[in-house]
C-alpha cells in the first residue's frame, strides 16, 4: 500500500473514533437535558408556594421595607456576584458567555464605585479567576451539571452571611447572580438578576395578580407572627433563587454541550467524507501507476 493512502486511512480511522465520542456525548447531553428539565419542573410548586407565602406574610408584616433583607444600603461599597459556569468544557461558549456577562457587570458596578466579590460555581469559572490571580469570595465545584438543593443552600447561606455582615467588616451590600436561563432546547440566554436587597414585595404582588389567580390573600393567622414567618421565609426564598439559577444553568449547560457535540459530530462526518474521497483518488492513482509500471516493464522486455 502506498504511503499516501496509508496516511489517509489512518486519519479516517482517527476521525471516526472522535466522531463516536462526540456522538455519545451528544446523546448523553440530550438525555440529561430532559432530566434537568424535570428537576426544574419539580421545583416549581415549591417556588410558587413560597412566593405566595412570602407575599402573604409581607402584606401582613408591619414594615417590610425596613427588613434587613429588603432595605437598600444608602451608600453601597461592595457587591457579590455569583457566576454560574460549567465544571467541564466541550460545551461551546456556555461558560465564557456567563464570564463575559460577569465581566460587563463587574465593570458597571466598578463605575458606580462598588467593589466586586465574585462567588464562582463551576471549575471553568474558578480557573478563569485563578489564572488571573483574582480573589473570589467562594468557589463551588463538582455539581454544575446536577445541582441539588443542598448545594444551593450552602451557597445561599454563604451569600446571606456576607450580606448580613456590615460592609465596614468586609460584608457586601448587594448580591447579583449571573446564570443562563433555559427557555427551551434551542434558546438559552445569559441573565443577570439581583437577589439582594430583595425586591420581592412589588415583584411578587405583580406576579400573583398577573398570574391569573388575582384573589387577595386569605386572612391567614400567622404562627408565631407575620414578622417571624417572614424572617424565616426570606432566607429560604434566597436559597430557592440560587437553586433555580443552578437548575436553569445546568439545563442550559447540557443544551450547550449537546449543540457543541452535534456540530462536532457533523464536522467529523464531513471530514470523513472528504478524506475517503481523497483516499479513493490516491488508491486509483496508485493502481494506475502500477499498471503503467507493469506495461512499461513488459514493453522494455519485449523490445
Amino acid at each position: 500500500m502506498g504511503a499516501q493512502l496509508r496516511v489517509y486511512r489512518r486519519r479516517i480511522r482517527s476521525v471516526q473514533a472522535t466522531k463516536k465520542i462526540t456522538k455519545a456525548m451528544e446523546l448523553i447531553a440530550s438525555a440529561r437535558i430532559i432530566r434537568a428539565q424535570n428537576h426544574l419542573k419539580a421545583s416549581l410548586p415549591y417556588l410558587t408556594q413560597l412566593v405566595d407565602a412570602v407575599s402573604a406574610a409581607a402584606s401582613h408584616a408591619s414594615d417590610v421595607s425596613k427588613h434587613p433583607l429588603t432595605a437598600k444600603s444608602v451608600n453601597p461599597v461592595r457587591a457579590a456576584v455569583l457566576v454560574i459556569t460549567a465544571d467541564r468544557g466541550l460545551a461551546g461558549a456556555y461558560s465564557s458567555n456567563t464570564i463575559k456577562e460577569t465581566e460587563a457587570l463587574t465593570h458597571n458596578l466598578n463605575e458606580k464605585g462598588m467593589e466586586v466579590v465574585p462567588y464562582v460555581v463551576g471549575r471553568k469559572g474558578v480557573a478563569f479567576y485563578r489564572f488571573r490571580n483574582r480573589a473570589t469570595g467562594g468557589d463551588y465545584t463538582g455539581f454544575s451539571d446536577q445541582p441539588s438543593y443542598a448545594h444551593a443552600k450552602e451557597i445561599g447561606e454563604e451569600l446571606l452571611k456576607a450580606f448580613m455582615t456590615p460592609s465596614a467588616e468586609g460584608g457586601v451590600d448587594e448580591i447579583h447572580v449571573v446564570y443562563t436561563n433555559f427557555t427551551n432546547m434551542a434558546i438559552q440566554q445569559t441573565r443577570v438578576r439581583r437577589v439582594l436587597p430583595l425586591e420581592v414585595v412589588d415583584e411578587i404582588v405583580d406576579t400573583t395578580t398577573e398570574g391569573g389567580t388575582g384573589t387577595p390573600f386569605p386572612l391567614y393567622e400567622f404562627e408565631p407572627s407575620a414578622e417571624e414567618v417572614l424572617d424565616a421565609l426570606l432566607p429560604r426564598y434566597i436559597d430557592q433563587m440560587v437553586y433555580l439559577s443552578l437548575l436553569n444553568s445546568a439545563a442550559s449547560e447540557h443544551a450547550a454541550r449537546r449543540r457543541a457535540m452535534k456540530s462536532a459530530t457533523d464536522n467529523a462526518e464531513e471530514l470523513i467524507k472528504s478524506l475517503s474521497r481523497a483516499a479513493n483518488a490516491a488508491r486509483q492513482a496508485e493502481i494506475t501507476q502500477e499498471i503503467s509500471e507493469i506495461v512499461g516493464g513488459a514493453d522494455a522486455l519485449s523490445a
Partner: protein
Amino acid sequence: MSGPLAVAVVSAERSIWSGSAKSVVAKTPEGDVGILRGHEPMLALLMEAPLRIELEDGSNILVAVHGGFFSVDSDTVNVIAEVAELAQDIDIDRAKAALSRAQAQVDSEDLSPVRRAEARLHVAKA
C-alpha cells in the same frame, strides 16, 4: 363536616405526597397543631419533627420535615419544606448514624441536627 382535606407535601426538589386526608398534625414553634376540615386560614412555621397525616381510612402517613412552613386555606393544606422524607425513603442505618454523629458533636446552642435525625428515625420506625 366529614369531607376530606386536600393535602400536598412539597419539598424544594420535588413534590413528595398529595392526596386527601382526614386530619394533619404538625409541630409549630408554639406547639402541636391539628388541622381538620373547616380550619381557619393559617400560615405557620414547622419545626424539625414528624408530620402526621391521617388518611380517610384511618391509617397514618408520617413525613419527616426539616424546616419549612405550612399553609391552610379553604380545606387545602400545603406543606412546604426544604427537605421532606416519607418513611420508605429513609435509610434507617444512615439515619441512626446521623443521629449518633449529631449527638457526638452537639453544642448546647443548636439542637436542630439532633432533632432532625430523631424525627427521621421516628418516621422510619413507625
